[in-house]
């Protein structure tokens, strides 16, 4: 460290606020700690605001989020200060991680204070503790703005844009030696546990304000971890232990129903899972083969209607009862046939034409099933009323409609369906990963990249596009079976292009694009967000679609590759890191050879 004057001078050039670096770091650490501590004060006078923020000596509701953000800020501040052992937290050594965490803390604290003021009518509703929290949250932000930022010094651009570029910078981490395998597996397990915890916390939030606060904290937190280079390190670790990660992720997902004491939120869970699985199926069509399908939800509908018809429901026009696996297979096969029927004439079209034709076919499905009611057409699907009273299924003698207790936990009806759906999700994930990393998947990607060149490589373009289309349709049909039984009835309305409740074709496509095309986890994450946000923010009601549109535009502007970039996209950004990737790739190669 140089003399204070020199530091100050350089800080003037390379930081937003002209304060010495040591002071800046101290502000971050102390400010983070103060913010966390302020969560222990009471912030408002009455318990009229949800979560009860009136208690001194214990955080409640939204205060927990402020507390978490404060602690993280302080810890990253200490890591930036060079405390041994903590340095691993910020391998990229980027100061934007501290800034993002500090801003996240500020945002969630001020959001809470603002929500209190607005809902209870004025700033008078804030106690001294609330004011302290609001001011304390500013301190680490000021400190973080005093840290130097990267970028060409002396460039004519404004400090604001330099700062923005600094934050947007992709973290560059030096290739590190892999940890021992057990340590890496422990890290994966810990991350999955935290992920399950976050998902459970988010799904269990009892009121909209808490969910918004949760989103703010998670967004800034995740962004900070990304800036610190931790997500990159994590993806390198998971790439080394792929099957462990996959099994662990399913174990974590299967643990979800056990964290729930009632069926109130497991119904959301199973809907998220259905939506996510169908989005992953769509990712084969859109993300791998590059076929823009705007009528995909119709295949879910075909699966659901087929399963309903063979469910033995009194209202079904077919009076037969299939066991669960046969119903699922029938749904999948029916969807696949429907996919072939639609695909055969349309897949000769390219690009925009295909999108328009699939959009049309999707609508035709919905309109057709509303007309097969015995009046305007043959009585097959029950018309607009659909097929109600679908009986529950039993799997291996277990009636999914009843509660069962397992090792002290009670699993309700939706928990049962959640676990069944998870089985189908696993199948779809397996199909996706294996197909995408094979001769077939490479042919799909080649068609997506350059159809003419793909043809010249000997790929029968039409056949492979049809295969992608039919496979995607079949996977959606599988999910349709669970949906039909879980929801008690099938009606035509949900299977439309756009609506406020996912899954519909627009939301499915959005989940794929938002999450990350061509990846497994992308659509799963995208679908979870797209389902949870409207489900949790009921107060947005009329503005939901508007907010959805704005969010999509922002995302396309700032992260066009989606939340989770595919390995290929990563390669594109990480040429410098080639050694790591090469070794993992080579490991894969030798494994394949063996």
């Amino acid at each position, binding site marked *: 460290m140089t003399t204070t004057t020199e530091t100050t001078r350089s800080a003037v050039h390379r930081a937003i606020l002209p304060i010495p670096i040591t002071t800046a770091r101290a502000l971050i650490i102390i400010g983070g700690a103060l913010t966390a501590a302020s969560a222990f004060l009471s912030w408002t006078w009455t318990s009229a605001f949800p979560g009860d923020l009136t208690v001194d000596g214990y955080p409640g509701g939204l205060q927990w989020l402020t507390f978490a953000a404060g602690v993280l800020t302080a810890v990253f501040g200490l890591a930036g200060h060079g405390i041994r052992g903590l340095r691993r937290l910020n391998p990229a050594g980027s100061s934007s991680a501290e800034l993002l965490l500090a801003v996240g803390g500020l945002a969630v604290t001020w959001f809470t204070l603002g929500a209190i003021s607005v809902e209870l009518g004025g700033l008078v509703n804030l106690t001294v503790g609330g004011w302290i929290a609001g001011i304390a949250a500013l301190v680490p932000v000021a400190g973080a703005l005093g840290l130097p930022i990267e970028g060409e010094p002396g460039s004519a651009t404004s400090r604001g844009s330099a700062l923005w570029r600094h934050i947007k910078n992709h973290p560059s981490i030096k290739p590190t030696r892999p940890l021992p395998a057990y340590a890496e597996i422990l890290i994966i397990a810990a991350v999955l546990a935290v992920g399950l915890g976050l998902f459970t916390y988010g799904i269990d939030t009892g009121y909209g304000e808490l969910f918004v606060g949760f989103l703010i904290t998670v967004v800034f937190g995740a962004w900070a971890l990304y800036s610190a280079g931790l997500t990159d390190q994590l993806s390198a670790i998971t790439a080394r232990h792929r099957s462990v990660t996959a099994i662990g992720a399913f174990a974590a997902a299967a643990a979800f129903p056990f964290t729930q004491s009632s069926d109130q939120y497991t119904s959301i869970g199973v809907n998220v899972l259905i939506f996510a699985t169908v989005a992953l199926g769509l990712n084969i069509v859109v993300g791998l083969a590059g076929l823009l399908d705007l009528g995909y939800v119709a295949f879910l509908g075909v699966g659901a209607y087929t399963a309903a018809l063979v469910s033995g429901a009194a209202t079904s026009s077919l009076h037969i009862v299939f066991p669960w696996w046969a119903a699922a297979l029938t749904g999948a096969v029916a969807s696949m046939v429907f996919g072939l029927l639609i695909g055969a004439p349309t897949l000769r079209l390219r690009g925009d034409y295909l999108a328009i034709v699939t959009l049309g076919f999707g609508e035709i499905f919905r309109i057709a099933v509303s007309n097969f009611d015995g009046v305007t057409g043959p009585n097959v699907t029950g018309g607009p009323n659909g097929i109600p009273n679908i009986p529950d299924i039993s799997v291996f003698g277990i009636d999914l409609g009843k509660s069962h207790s397992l090792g002290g936990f009670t699993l309700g009806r939706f928990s049962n369906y959640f676990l069944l759906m998870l089985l189908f999700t696993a199948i779809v994930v397996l199909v996706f990963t294996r197909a995408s990393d094979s001769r077939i998947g490479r042919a799909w990607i080649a068609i997506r990249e350059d159809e003419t060149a793909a043809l010249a490589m000997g790929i029968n373009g039409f056949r492979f596009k049809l295969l992608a289309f039919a496979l995607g349709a079949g996977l959606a049909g599988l999910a349709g079976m669970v949906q039909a039984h879980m929801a008690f009835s099938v009606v035509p309305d949900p299977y439309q292009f756009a609506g406020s409740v996912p899954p519909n074709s627009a939301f499915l496509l959005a989940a794929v694009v938002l999450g990350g095309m061509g990846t497994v986890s992308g659509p799963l994450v995208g679908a979870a967000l797209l389902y949870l946000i409207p489900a949790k923010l009921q107060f947005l009601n009329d503005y939901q679609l508007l907010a959805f549109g704005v969010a999509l535009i922002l995302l396309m502007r700032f992260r066009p590759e989606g939340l989770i970039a595919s390995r290929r996209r990563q*390669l594109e950004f990480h*040429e410098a890191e080639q050694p790591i990737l090469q070794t993992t790739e080579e490991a894969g190669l030798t494994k394949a050879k063996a």
Partner: protein
Amino acid sequence: MTTTLTENSTAPEPAASTTLLEAKGVIMRFGGLTAVRNVDLTVGSGEIVGLIGPNGAGKTTFFNCLTGLYVPTEGQVTYKGTVLPPKPYKVTQAGISRTFQNIRLFSNMTVLENVLVGRHTRTKEGLISALLRGPGYRRAEAEARTRAMEILDFVGLAAKADRLSRNLPYGEQRKLEIARALAGDPGVLLLDEPTAGMNPQETRATQELVFAIRDQGIAVLVIEHDMRFIFSLCDRVACLVQGEKLVEGTPAVVQSDERVISAYLGTPYDGAPGSEEVAEVQAAEAAADGATSEEEDR
């Protein structure tokens, strides 16, 4: 340049060899424009045949007719005596591979994956075996990878197997296109301006590469504007002008044909031995410049 690729190489056969690829009376019309007029061309085994002609002469269109990307208005193309159906994937399956004038790599795939796609016709694992991943599938996949790595080694790109192809420098992208085409185990390789945009060193390396490919027993048909490259490389050269085949013969014959020179220069041939080569090089360079600038327009 090692391993199995050189094993099956035989000594270059004499030019009078069996006919592999034969185009007869190929005509390609686009509305009122006739891009290819009644062109006959044969490529025999072990041969390197050149195709030259000024910009817009119809060379690429002729290639597209050979490979099934265009359905010729008239005429037919046979390979080893059987008529080729105008479907690109069937042509490749039969044993004809090609590269493109404006590089058409799968840019978001790695170098290795590009070559593996090129291997598509020589592997046949379907969806079911990809999902089940049995021992047969693993073996086939490992073999495909080994073979792809051999080919990458052959063109000198093995060290960059895991790069994204879009991040390769221009010259290496052209090499990768050749590697991808070789992965289909072709009998005839069609190269559309393989040295466009290359510096003299890279051009020389490409020349060596084409000779090495020929030594593997693969016949080559190459379009090029670089006359020095064409004349030192080819056993036989054909010149297309406005869709018509003007002359065909050994490099010496074509080189000294007045019609060829006037087609390129637009001026009569003056016969001075020294100025001849200079004029050719200039013409070639001008043409190459034209080709690259046109490419940028696309």
